């Protein structure tokens, strides 16, 4: 039972201390941020989306490069061009 701590008859925090954490404006701001559609968020502001797109572009670039190299070194195709 060491993962449990028991408080017995411990009073709740006073109202003033609880109310100092209350912030409805912040809640609405967080709500708007959380529910804003992805397409309305500029890419550079969404790190995850930005990184994913960057990775896709990088992979596409590497594949195209590799294909071009392969085409360039294919002897049959070189023959044909002659």
């Amino acid at each position, binding site marked *: 039972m060491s993962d449990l701590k028991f408080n*017995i008859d411990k009073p709740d*925090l006073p109202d003033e201390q609880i109310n100092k954490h209350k912030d409805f404006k912040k809640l609405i701001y967080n709500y708007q941020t959380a529910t804003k559609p992805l397409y309305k968020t500029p890419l550079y502001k969404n790190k995850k989306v930005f990184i994913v797109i960057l990775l896709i572009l990088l992979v596409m670039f590497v594949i195209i490069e590799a294909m071009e190299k392969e085409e360039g070194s294919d002897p049959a195709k070189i023959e044909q061009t002659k």
Partner: protein
Amino acid sequence: MSSHHKSDIEIQQELQLIAAAKENPARFGLLYDKYYKSIFVFIHRRTDDEELTADITSQVFLKALINIKKYEYKGVPFSAWLFRIAFNEINMYFRKNNAQRVVSLSQNGMVQIAQEAELDENAEGINQMMIAVKQLDALELQLIELRFFEKNSFAEVGEIVGITENNAKVKVYRILDKLKKVLSKK
């Protein structure tokens, strides 16, 4: 947290507030004001950490606001729905962080358990029960806390934990039987 036992008029007024918040999130403010303290206290009793409680409370209200359109009245007050979100958020926090759980007990709650289980209500009996309660596992303690220390109805306990009212009743009475057995061995 005595949000239960509401009159029909109070329930209707609350349903109007919920309907307004579903239409316009800015109108969630009245519900936020009404339940902020009870949700904060509910979480603080289980974490005993003010800053952490403030963080989890803001997550609870954010999730409530995001999901309020899905809320349907099923015979238990709106507060039980909020407490359910809070209950899940607290459990998620403890699972992720492997942190120490806090259980808040009170002498009054112990007396209520003693009455319900037909056990000794004298000081010695209560002390023995305090020792026995500490032997319960985390889920059992959560049910005991909700029922006897926070005085929720079985319907609310069920809603908060995510089980049926009958299941909540069966589980709570099993825990009382377990306590009786532990105490009878002494």
